[in-house]
């Protein structure tokens, strides 16, 4: 099966600019996650979708971050305006739906964002 696809692989922007990341989950996976991983730390959950609905966005900085999954498949994460502390790897993951207990997460290779 094809894995989770993410693009771009790398992105360098200046502070106050905007940036968008794209994720295509594994076919048939209803749940999609965006994580932020700062160098040397574990992934931090930003937002979780079940189909096209938001399950948890409690750790998403909503003043600058937004995410959508309009058709319940692909998702886009946007940052506007970016700050220096947003420099991190942004990981997308997917899994079978909310009723599939004990199914693991499948991760993409991430987008490495550098804000200068």
């Amino acid at each position: 099966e094809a894995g989770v696809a993410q693009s771009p692989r790398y992105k360098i922007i200046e502070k106050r600019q905007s940036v968008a990341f794209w994720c295509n989950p594994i076919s048939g996976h209803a749940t999609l996650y965006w994580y932020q991983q700062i160098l040397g730390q574990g992934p931090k959950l930003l937002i979780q979708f079940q189909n096209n609905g938001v399950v948890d966005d409690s750790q998403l900085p909503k003043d600058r971050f937004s995410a959508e999954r309009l058709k319940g498949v692909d998702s886009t994460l946007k940052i506007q305006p970016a700050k220096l502390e947003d420099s991190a790897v942004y990981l997308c993951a997917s899994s079978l739906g909310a009723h599939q207990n004990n199914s693991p997460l499948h991760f993409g290779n991430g987008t490495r964002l550098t804000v200068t």
Partner: protein
Amino acid sequence: SQQGEEDPQALSIQEGENATMNCSYKTSINNLQWYRQNSGRGLVHLILIRSNEREKHSGRLRVTLDTSKKSSSLLITASRAADTASYFCATEGEYRQFYFGTGTSLTVIP
């Protein structure tokens, strides 16, 4: 924060030795999972242990879970250079949110 913590933060061993890393968490769980992350890549699922299980094996991996102490350990036996990676534990929230620990960086010296 619901994030767990792994220790040690870094571990360096010789090829063929065993590697043990520990995870502590704060909330009640349905299951606990371990993931591996190679440099510059996404995380890969290794093994899952349910809250009613105490020990689980998969190949060279052995996981234990002590829910009374809110802790888990991952043992990798007969380590190989290819096992060099970061290892994370993850706990599952009520609505299948997954919270990751701080990670253990393992280096296996050939």
